[in-house]
């Protein structure tokens, strides 16, 4: 069953390590609108990949496609995570398989308290960080544990959303603009956390508008434009390549 497609032809980077997460020729649609237009890339275990591009380039769509959310529809393509065919799974199966998404609009569940939001993440095994450990990471959440999640401040909600992903034992963390709305100190804090969990072997895809910041953290970078990959290489390469930065990232 677990026949893995041979990606070597498609992977336009030189690394030889076997890919942990592979996306191959993925096409996604919102209804009639054709958004992700056949993208392929690999992520290796323990790597942080920065996914960059302008507004509307299709970054969020890509992450949502990988997470197997019903909208957009992936009409063609394969997604493999650690020998498991994600493209054949529903989103909850993909989550059990080890995928964790921090969505761009945070998606705190209305009607549930902070703690319940976290408990919810631990109903279906495998379970990751304990709730207490998450409170240590974000003390603010601990203080607010009995408050309804949606009444948190914007930044607090962002923390909760990240904490909720970590509450599950995941193999790949997909972060859609995690720094948005966070105070600079907290951004520093989260960056440290990301480094920390990277050290523990977590694989991460990071979508971020603040490209410089993302690139400083990431090992590799992919740049999307109108739903296609226009660059796939090391993060350092992007930082050095002025032309690229200018054309696609406007920095």
């Amino acid at each position: 069953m677990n026949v893995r497609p041979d990606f070597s032809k498609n992977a336009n980077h030189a690394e030889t390590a076997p890919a942990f997460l592979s996306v191959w020729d993925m096409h996604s649609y919102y209804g009639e609108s054709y958004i992700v237009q056949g993208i392929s890339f690999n992520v290796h275990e323990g790597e942080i990949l920065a996914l960059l591009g302008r507004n509307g380039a299709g970054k969020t769509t890509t992450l949502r496609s990988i997470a197997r959310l019903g909208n957009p529809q992936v009409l063609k393509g394969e997604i493999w995570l650690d020998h498991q065919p994600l493209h054949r799974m529903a989103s909850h199966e993909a989550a059990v398989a080890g995928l964790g998404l921090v969505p761009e609009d945070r998606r705190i569940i209305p009607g549930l308290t902070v703690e319940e939001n976290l408990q919810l993440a631990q109903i279906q095994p495998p379970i990751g960080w304990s709730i207490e450990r998450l409170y240590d990471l974000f003390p603010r959440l601990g203080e607010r544990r009995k408050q309804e999640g949606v009444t948190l401040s914007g930044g607090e909600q962002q923390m909760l959303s990240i904490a909720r992903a970590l509450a599950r034992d995941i193999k790949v963390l997909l972060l859609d603009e995690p720094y948005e709305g966070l105070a600079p100190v907290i951004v520093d804090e989260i960056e440290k956390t990301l480094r920390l969990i990277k050290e523990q072997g977590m694989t991460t895809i990071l979508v971020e508008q603040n490209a410089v910041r993302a690139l400083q953290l990431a090992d590799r970078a992919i740049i999307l434009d109108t739903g296609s990959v226009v660059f796939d290489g090391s993060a350092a390469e992007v930082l050095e390549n002025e032309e690229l930065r200018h054309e696609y990232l406007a920095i």
Partner: protein
Amino acid sequence: MLGIKGKDLSVFILVAVLALLAPFLLNPFPVDSAMAQFNAGYPDLMQRFVIFGIFAIGFNILFGLTGYLSFGHAAFLGVGSYAAIWMMKLVSLNIVPGIIMAIVFAGLFSVLVGYISLRRSGIYFSILTLAFAQMSYALAYSVLTPITGGETGLQIKPGDTPLLSNVAEGEIGRANFFGLEMSDSSVITLGGWEFTMNVGYYVCAVVMIAAFYLAIRIFRSPFGMMLRAVKSNQQRMNYTGLNSKPYTLAAFVISGMYAGLAGGLMVAMDTQVGPERMFWTASGEVVLMTILGGAGTLIGPVLGAGFIKYMENIVSKINSTVLHEWFAFLPDGMEDFLVTIFYPFVGKGWHLTLGLMFMAVVIFLPGGLVQGGQKIAAMFRGKKAAEKDGKTANQQTPAE
């Protein structure tokens, strides 16, 4: 033309032409043919089509635009009817004052109900309107019998001598429009076909065309846009400096007045009112008509109204004798077999067919009958369009 253009204008012209030619279009089968059962071109049903069409058009202004789902609109129809019949009993047999009072009273009543109910939204609003309508029904049925005639309702009686009309002693007054009696018809016979041109129907049709025209104007007006904005995001509306309350109340009252107009016309066509006109199922019916046709579309509610009234009046009249007649040409065994198959769905089983149709429409045509029409239209437009669509699909990349 007339301040509407493009697609709206064609829809309007289509509706107007359909309404005016209905006596012909709805009677496609010769009188003596077995299919004559399906003819709907007789005055009563045609009147019902357009009257319920008006009711549904008005309901759609509230529901389709603002998303507020009222479950008590039949109360306004009932109030309009009672107002109209009293006008006819007391003031004039001419339908105009009756209809005007129907609109006025329904409007006033909807101001009251709307003002209170609109303090809540969503399902809470629906239940408030339902509660008002059910109270109106219950009171009209029993305690208010002196005013409403109770269960048996109100009719024009031999003793009724309206102020402005002269009715001969012992005769029963008839509704008229400046002397033209509503029940007057002339029958045109063409070969095996018979077409009934009825005064009452044409009065209704003209009113409906006017009501439809007004609805189009409202839909395309800044006011209509505001109503859609209410449905979309009330929060943003408030922070943009708009008070959403009067907008919704205005929509509520307008649709209540449409209901009153429908109620008044009903009395004008058939001078009788009963309280079950206000029962919750009657309110539910207009909801179903609107959704069935396609909520928020211009023509949908009219289609939905026609569909339900057709089922009610035509399918319920098919009995086993009629079925046997239809299939008489088949060998006996076949005939009985087919009759057995169809029998549960017609006549006393017409509710079953209606229920199945409701389900089928929502399941297969999420946008209501209008969507069905669009699908058929698309099919007719044929391959050429399909090719074009296929090409554009790849280019449809909104990303910049």
